[in-house]
């Protein structure tokens, strides 16, 4: 039987995740982690991990390449893929917020005849705009979104806020919160349902290891 592949996120969640795996069956082989190997053995020889960019991860799991994965709910909400979302692991918690330059109010933004909002979270922002009855131009950006209002590309941004330090550095304030984001354990629907005796126990072990009460 081939080792079961688990997709782990690079970046924001990775820093919090990897220390939590230490000492468990899911601990990553440190040598392989430092090398350029794509497939990283775990302490349990029947498990292996692949580190992926968050935006790519849901596709690897939905496509059945990885049986399980850990990904931020912010990314999951932007991915139109059919996945099982088995648990909210409750770490990597942050807010998805509408932010604008100091002294701007939400009312001022609502009154703008042509409001421009820069974000990489187009789905969540679009849903919030529809719910609020606001018309705006969405400016799709992939990184350093907070620069957009500073440089005049947009009037406001929708982005993840954890400590608020980046906002402060760019003289931005949070006007409202669109939702909460945190790490989620996801599974490939086909594998979860067709191999329940293999995937179910792994999913439960990962949840009990990683879930923050």
């Amino acid at each position, binding site marked *: 039987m081939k080792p079961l592949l688990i997709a782990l996120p690079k970046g924001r969640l990775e820093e919090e995740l990897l220390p939590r795996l230490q000492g468990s069956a899911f601990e990553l082989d440190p040598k392989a982690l430092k090398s350029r190997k794509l497939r990283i053995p775990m302490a349990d020889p029947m498990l292996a991990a692949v580190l992926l960019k968050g935006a790519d991860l849901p596709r690897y799991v*939905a496509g059945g390449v990885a049986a399980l994965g850990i990904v931020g709910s912010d990314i999951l909400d932007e991915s139109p893929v059919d*996945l099982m979302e088995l648990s909210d692991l409750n770490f990597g918690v942050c807010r998805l917020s509408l932010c604008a330059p100091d002294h701007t109010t939400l009312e001022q933004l609502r009154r703008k005849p042509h409001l421009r909002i820069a974000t990489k979270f187009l789905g969540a922002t679009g849903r919030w705009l529809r719910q609020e009855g606001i018309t705006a131009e969405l400016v799709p950006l992939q990184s350093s979104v907070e620069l957009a209002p500073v440089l005049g590309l947009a009037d406001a941004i929708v982005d993840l806020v954890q400590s608020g330090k980046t906002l402060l550095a760019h003289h931005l304030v949070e006007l409202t919160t669109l939702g909460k984001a945190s790490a989620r354990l996801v599974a490939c629907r*086909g594998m979860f349902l067709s191999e329940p005796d293999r995937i179910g126990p792994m999913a439960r072990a990962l949840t009990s290891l990683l879930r923050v009460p």
Partner: protein
Amino acid sequence: MPTHTPSFPDLLFEDAARLRRWEAQLMGHLDCAGYRELHPSLVMRNPVNPSTVRFFDGDQLVALRWDFTEALARTLVRRFQDPPRRISYAGPVFRRPANSWDPVERLEVGCEHIQTDPDQRTEADRELARLLMAVPALLGLEGCLLHIGHAALLRRPLEAEHIPLELGQEIARVLDRRAIHRAAELLDGHPAKDRLLAHAEILLSGPNGPGSLDDLARGPYGGLLVAEAEQLGRVLSVLTAQLPKGLTLRLDLGDLRGLGYYSGPTLRLWAPGAQRELAAGGRYDGLYPEMGRPWYAAGFCVRLTTLLELGDNDQGEK
């Protein structure tokens, strides 16, 4: 972006031959059980579902057949006063999938059992389940799982708690993803939140056999769902006694797909390693009354496209 070929797959020689062989095997299997083929048109009118492949025929919007059950129902209602009891079908359906890379054109073989007397329903459900249980051996598949669910297990508690339709659909959608934490967010502030979440925990506890029914009976809606639990218990015991070698039967109370469509027991056949179910079906007693006929119906379809994919992964035919 999806390219054309995976969405509308071309089948070259070997795959085309396998498809024809499976079609013949399955149609022969259904024919032996008294099911007669009905071949509804590939073009359907009045497409309201946005996931269909639509186009204009002159000034009329039409769609490629998106679902055999609905196509057959439209034909039967138009052409028959008394319905034929057993119908089989084979061919493609065209529907936009949940995952953009999955095929739009899907090849199916299936059957429908239609009843005019509600007392005939239990026997019809058992007949269909027996037919479906024979499919893996017919196709040379080993280690398959047959999941049995029941559409009313979530719908009735939602109705009893007066959950608005739209919220109910959203709850079903997130629970279908096993995301109970999302259901908790959706029900925030609702007086029935704790009861519904406790019930959802039972439904989603995993496909784990007859023990699930005891949990259901002890849960907050045990009294409301007595008839459904008994029905599932009976189905499980009848089918377990007739289970072919190499097939595992499991209760999956968390099978919430098609909640607005199915009205009774549901069946899903899984092959190890398959990304999609090999066959799916169940009872849908609401369809014909909506079309003005007091008929009851159940059926299943075998997804040959999934079988072809299994073959590609060398996990299919033995």
